[in-house]
């Protein structure tokens, strides 16, 4: 396990980038990067450290980065270098001589904040987060960029966020340790008891037995004391030392089975599943809570244009050009369109027909709107159009428009060029009314080449519908279509337009200009102005975009839910997207009542009040009766945001200022007061956290959005702490590292570019859907195997060892062993180890298919049903009873007996052989009873162990070995003499039967009277096998029932409108207008901003 981690670390440490050394860029390994180095990064490179952007290949030294690894947001972000560094630090030689001095904050974990100052050329420049490229991000759409390393290694923000690496151990590990302690205590108690017995016996009998004289006149109590240690040695086999080794061997084997599983192997990326930590397997069968990342884990991070509604008609189903539906139809061929990228899979041939025929002008206008109303930037590489969008949704829409014949070709500061069905037209952009999360819409005002002015607008249906013209014939149809889309968990946007009169625009433009230069509340003023023009719109239609889920996500989630596993989605993305995905992956359904953070504030506050009133100071002494927060029944889901979480859990912010006031306590009184108030605060915080966790755990699903990596880990930790439940975190990006490390089990999605999540994970595989196999099959099997193994192991050792205990009552508590020394040595190694090891590796009660089909089987692990203190003591009791039977039946048989030939077989050695034979047969048959999956290896090992025992025994008792080592092998001839007697065989048979038959009877009765879930399934195995492959419940389409509206397709940030209008991103060669600032708006904006 450590080796795997080491290998990964090595791989990362040895990645390379270019660093200036001796005036030149040289390829250097990541591990050699130091603070103060100037490095060069190229397109699609991972950023190796937190660096200050100095310059880039792009205009104004812009640099685009993808931060998905950090915060799960999928849109590109841009960073911009300082004006001076952009100007002077483009060349290698100038970079080499760069001698700036940076003063900055201490390393911390806040991803969105940075404060610092650059001193260079006798000037100071203030630095903020916009100029910093964080480690873990990826450079996109930027050929190369240069930066100065500010924080490296463990000081980087991502590493600060990734939390401590903990050494994880399983619940069973802890339990096992306590059990071993228990056994130690038992051992000492038994030894002490027997020592006292010995002292007493010495006083009563031993002292008078002249034949026992040993030349030492020790007192009985001293002899008792010596025998205490004697018994510690004799009975030490009670403590299963080899248990630890065996447990690790079994876990290692199980890990290999996980690595080998073809059904968790992802062929497309050639990625097998990997158990990176080999010591946690059985914990996989005990998971209660799963914390999942969204982007890249549940979703593929691919947006596709799926359907649309134009003029009240829905397009996007499978149908041919004459509107007939076909279940199987070929993909639409876009080859007529030279600009099509061919990536879109679309099946509605009728829409193509409509576009080409141009019968309905709205259809063309619809796609034209998509092509013109956006803030996407374009880039031509080898003649190919390459779009850079602020949000993947927008990118998907513009790409779709391009595929359908309306290709967005180029943009300058105030023009947009579009190829409309092959003809290129350039439109003058008069204004871009950018998106923000309050407006939930964006508009663009353009002048067509013909001279008319039009406003195009797209946005969330709720905001658009408020602003529609009264006369909109397709309003209702579109509304219905939106419902249909929402039901299919597609993300929708409404599109509309309006014609604007020249004078109307002039008038508005004046107001717009005025608002643009407003020095106070500019944003508000602008919003107001926007509002004035965005009204009386004419509805064109709606788009539906699919945020593509990973394969099999809904099935997996429903399976896991049936296994009583609760799933929490933790994402850095915004609320609407997260909610939409919740519906898409069937985590949320129509029946679910969704509670938002704000809704439950009241609930939590009442609870706090109640607790305060009830408990008062003695709150901790009063047993807390936890009544549920919600009325029972009903399906609830909770959707909360990171900031709400901070608030409710009293993290940081609140109260800190108050404490600061009391900085220097003068008197003892003050100090006491202070610690008291601190403690009270602490208790209050704890109470609130506990309440929150209780509340959240009553919900069937929880979605946390806008959470930072730290908060993700905190949420996991809260559940871990207050619910004492086993948690699993699954994620793919660097922002999940902390939670992966915090959870009991961390799973990384491998096969992606970033490796951070995988590197800190315990298990990795390529697809979310493999999780069900990992848990329901491997986890469950591992748990059952481990539990069976442990139970058997304790049983076996007790059955073996306690025979000494019973024997001691008949030999004067003299620490005499009941077996030959060689047998004691070999018992745990050879005679009883292999079958149980194999059971621990191979056993399966029901097959993998049935495990997946009946997720209810999983609950045994969650509830610790198969191994707990009760089971442990039952195993011990079983062992104790077995040892009793093993001793007392031969004892009865040996009471006076003499052998068949009159010679006495009631000697010690025959007795030992009889018990040992009965023991070996019993424990091996017992493992046979416990094994529910008899492969030939199992059968071979069980009968092999017995045969091995007899073989070795006869060898050790043979004449030959006695001649060689007369003193080492004292049992010469015993086996052959004793086992020749039918009487002894009858004794062995009876002993074995009395040991095993009750077990059979009890198992049969409990199986008949209280059959477990697994028993029932095993019983009907054949019938189930015969049944056809389980069919999924047919999807019931509930038209019109939908009350929810899915998210609109925008980033939660502002778009690139600013960049566009200021012209910063436009390459000089392509936009001659850049120099001449013709547009007043842009000019004003720029001055205000800088």
């Amino acid at each position, binding site marked *: 396990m450590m080796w795997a981690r080491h290998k990964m670390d090595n791989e990362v440490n040895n990645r390379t980038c270019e660093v200036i050394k001796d005036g030149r860029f040289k390829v250097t390994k990541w591990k050699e990067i130091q603070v103060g180095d100037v490095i060069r990064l190229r397109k699609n490179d991972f950023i190796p450290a937190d660096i200050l952007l100095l310059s880039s290949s792009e205009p104004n030294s812009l640099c685009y980065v993808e931060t998905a690894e950090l915060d799960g947001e999928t849109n590109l972000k841009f960073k911009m270098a300082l004006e001076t560094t952009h100007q002077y630090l483009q060349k290698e030689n100038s970079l080499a001589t760069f001698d700036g001095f940076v003063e900055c904050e201490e390393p911390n974990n806040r991803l969105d904040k940075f404060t610092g100052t650059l001193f260079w050329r006798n000037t100071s420049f203030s630095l903020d987060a916009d100029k910093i490229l964080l480690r873990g991000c990826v450079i996109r759409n930027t050929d190369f960029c240069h930066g100065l390393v500010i924080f490296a290694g463990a000081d980087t923000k991502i590493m600060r966020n990734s939390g401590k690496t903990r050494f994880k151990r399983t619940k069973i590990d802890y339990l096992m340790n306590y059990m071993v302690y228990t056994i130690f205590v038992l051992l000492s108690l038994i030894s002490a008891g027997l020592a006292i017995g010995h002292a007493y016996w010495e006083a009563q*009998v*031993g002292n*008078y*037995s*002249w*034949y026992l*004289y*040993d*030349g030492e006149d020790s007192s009985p109590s001293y002899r008792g004391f010596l025998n205490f240690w004697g018994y510690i040695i004799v009975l030490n086999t009670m403590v299963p030392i080899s248990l630890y080794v065996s447990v690790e061997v079994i876990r290692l084997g199980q890990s290999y089975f996980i690595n*080998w*599983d*073809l059904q968790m*192997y992802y*062929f*497309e990326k*050639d990625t*097998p599943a990997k158990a990176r930590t080999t010591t946690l397997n059985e914990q996989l069968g005990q998971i209660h809570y799963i914390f999942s990342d969204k982007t890249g884990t549940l979703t593929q991070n691919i947006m596709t244009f799926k359907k649309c509604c134009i003029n009240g008609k829905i397009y996007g189903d499978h149908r041919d050009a004459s509107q007939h539906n076909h279940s199987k139809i070929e993909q639409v061929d876009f080859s007529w369109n030279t600009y099509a990228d061919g990536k879109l899979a679309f099946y509605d041939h009728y829409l193509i027909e409509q576009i080409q025929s141009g019968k309905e002008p709205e259809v063309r206008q619809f796609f034209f709107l998509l092509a013109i109303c956006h803030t996407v930037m374009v880039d031509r590489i080898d003649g190919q159009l390459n779009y850079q969008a602020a949000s993947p949704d927008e990118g998907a829409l513009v790409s779709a428009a391009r595929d359908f014949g309306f290709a967005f070709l180029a943009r300058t500061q105030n023009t947009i060029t579009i190829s409309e069905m092959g003809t290129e037209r350039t439109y003058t952009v008069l204004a871009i009314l950018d998106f923000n999360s309050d407006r939930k819409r964006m508009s663009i005002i353009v002048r067509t080449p013909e001279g008319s002015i039009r406003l195009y607008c797209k946005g969330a249906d709720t905001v658009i519908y408020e602003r529609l013209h009264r006369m909109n014939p397709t309003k209702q149809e579109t509304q219905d279509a939106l419902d249909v889309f929402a039901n299919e968990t597609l993300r929708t946007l409404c599109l509309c337009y309006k014609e604007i009169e020249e004078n109307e625009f002039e008038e508005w433009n004046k107001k717009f200009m005025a608002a643009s230069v407003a020095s106070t509340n500019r944003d508000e003023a602008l919003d107001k102005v926007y509002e004035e023009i965005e009204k009386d719109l004419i509805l064109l239609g709606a788009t539906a975009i699919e945020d593509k889920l990973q394969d099999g996500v809904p099935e997996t989630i429903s399976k896991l839910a049936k296994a009583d596993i609760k799933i929490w989605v933790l994402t850095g993305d915004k609320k609407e997207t997260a909610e939409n995905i919740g519906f898409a992956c069937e985590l949320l359904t129509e029946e679910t009542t969704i509670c938002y953070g704000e809704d439950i504030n009241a609930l939590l506050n009442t609870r706090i009040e109640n607790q305060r009133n009830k408990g008062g100071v003695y709150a901790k002494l009063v047993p807390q009766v936890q009544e549920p927060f919600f009325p029972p029944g009903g399906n609830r889901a909770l959707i909360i945001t990171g900031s709400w979480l901070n608030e409710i859990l009293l993290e940081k912010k609140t109260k800190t200022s108050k404490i600061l006031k009391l900085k220097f306590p003068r008197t003892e009184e003050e100090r006491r007061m202070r610690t008291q108030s601190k403690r009270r605060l602490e208790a209050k915080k704890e109470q609130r956290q506990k309440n929150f966790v209780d509340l959240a755990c009553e919900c069937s699903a929880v979605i946390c959005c806008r959470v930072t990596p730290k908060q993700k880990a905190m949420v996991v930790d809260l559940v871990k702490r207050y619910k004492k439940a086993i948690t699993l975190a699954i994620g793919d990006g660097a922002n999940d590292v902390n939670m992966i490390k915090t959870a009991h089990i961390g799973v990384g999605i491998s096969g992606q570019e970033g490796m951070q999540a995988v590197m800190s994970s315990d298990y990795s595989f390529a697809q979310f859907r493999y999780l069900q196999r990992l848990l329901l099959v491997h986890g469950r099997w591992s748990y059952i195997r481990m539990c069976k193994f442990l139970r058997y192991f304790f049983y076996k050792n007790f059955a073996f060892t306690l025979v000494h205990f019973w024997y001691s009552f008949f030999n004067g508590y003299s*620490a005499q062993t009941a077996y030959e020394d060689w047998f004691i040595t070999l018992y745990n190694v050879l005679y009883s180890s292999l079958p149980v090891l194999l059971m621990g590796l191979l056993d399966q009660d029901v097959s*993998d298919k049935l495990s997946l089909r009946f997720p209810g089987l999983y609950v045994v692990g969650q509830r610790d049903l198969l191994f707990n203190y009760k089971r442990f003591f039952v195993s011990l009791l079983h062992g104790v009873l077995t040892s009793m039977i093993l001793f007392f039946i031969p*004892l*009865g*048989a040996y*009471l*006076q*007996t*003499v*052998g*068949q*030939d*009159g010679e006495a*077989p*009631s*000697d*010690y*050695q025959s007795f030992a052989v009889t018990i040992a034979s009965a023991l070996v047969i019993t424990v091996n048959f017992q493992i046979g009873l416990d094994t*529910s999956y*008899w492969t*030939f*290896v199992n059968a071979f090992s069980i009968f092999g162990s017995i045969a091995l025992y007899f073989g070795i025994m006869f060898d050790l008792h043979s*004449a030959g070995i*006695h*001649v060689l080592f*007369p*003193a080492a092998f004292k049992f*010469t001839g015993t086996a052959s003499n004793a086992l020749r*007697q039918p*009487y002894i065989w*009858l004794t062995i048979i*009876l002993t074995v039967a*009395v040991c095993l*038959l009750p077990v*059979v*009877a009890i*198992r*049969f009765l409990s199986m*008949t009277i209280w*059959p477990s879930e697994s028993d029932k399934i*095993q*019983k009907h*195995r054949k019938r189930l096998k015969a049944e056809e492959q389980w069919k999924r419940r047919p999807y019931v389409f509930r038209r019109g029932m939908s009350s929810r509206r899915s998210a609109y397709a925008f980033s939660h940030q502002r778009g690139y409108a600013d960049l566009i209008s200021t012209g910063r991103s436009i390459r000089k060669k392509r936009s001659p207008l850049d120099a001449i600032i013709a547009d007043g708006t842009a000019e004003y904006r720029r001055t205000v901003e800088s």
Partner: protein
Amino acid sequence: MTWSATARGAHQPDNTAFTQQRLPAWQPLLSASITLPLFFCAGLAFIGLGLGLYYSSNAIKELGYDYTGNPGTGDCSLCGVADQDRAPPPSCRCAWNFSLPELFQGPVYLYYELTKFYQNNRRYGVSRDDAQLSGLQSALRHPVNECFPYQFSAKGVPIAPCGAIANSLFNDTFTLWHQRLPGGPYVEVPLDRTGIAWWTDYHIKFHNPPLVNGSLALAFKGTTRPPNWPVPVYQLSPDPNNTGFINQDFVVWMRTAALPWFRKLYARIRQGNYSAGLPRGNYRVNITYNYPVRAFDGHKRIILSNISWMGGKNPFLGIAYLVVGSLCILTGFVMLVVYIRYQDQNDEAEDQE
């Protein structure tokens, strides 16, 4: 199934029954059709065996006499009193008289039995040197430390055989006399004292050291007898095949008992007129009382017994088999009843589903 046989990824796991955990396997289930017949068959078989064992055990005849000599118990009580102070007591003689009304079916074995004698005490049990007993010269002169305090004599001479077990060798002797006719003379019944040890012990485990000039006494030169012994080991018997370490009484004694009460074979009666058993008549066992047991409250018994295929008289196993067999059948019926009752319930429950 996303993989194909033709194109194979570099990291693709092998598709074998073992790696995919699809090994062919038998998944036995404790179903009624297996369990119930098992219990009934086992029950019947056990009862059959139990009856057999019980009757064979009952058919064995056993005759015993406690000659410890506690006060007022008869002839040996005088010897018993003398036993009180240990450290070789003076030899004492007593006798046990009994009469057989009918033939005591042969072959008859003569045992002695000791109780409260902890031959299985660990300290006692290890106090021997198997290397010495197997005739190794080196071990003869250098007994192992476990033999202490019977390792070397006070003068430092190695003791052979060393150790506490050997030192406490049982040394009472018995002779059996038969009076054929009432008032007639007592005739000594020949006791076969040679075939009483395990063949492996006599031939393999125990060996005398190699003779020196044909003399066993010389072979043991430089050793001394255990302190409790009246004679050195090479004088245990005049028979050269039954003296030294391979003296059968000694070998029998050295095979320590499992429990603190035990019998050891003293002699077989199978010679001459007595090959078929002991005919009716009066008998007397003359006992040479040497061995002190009253100090530790032990008892000595002398037993005449014959045996069956299963060995000596012991009703335990027969009774145990009978009890277990009956319990099996009883449990079988209980399980049958429970099975029938719950089977109906389960079926109903399933129908409801």
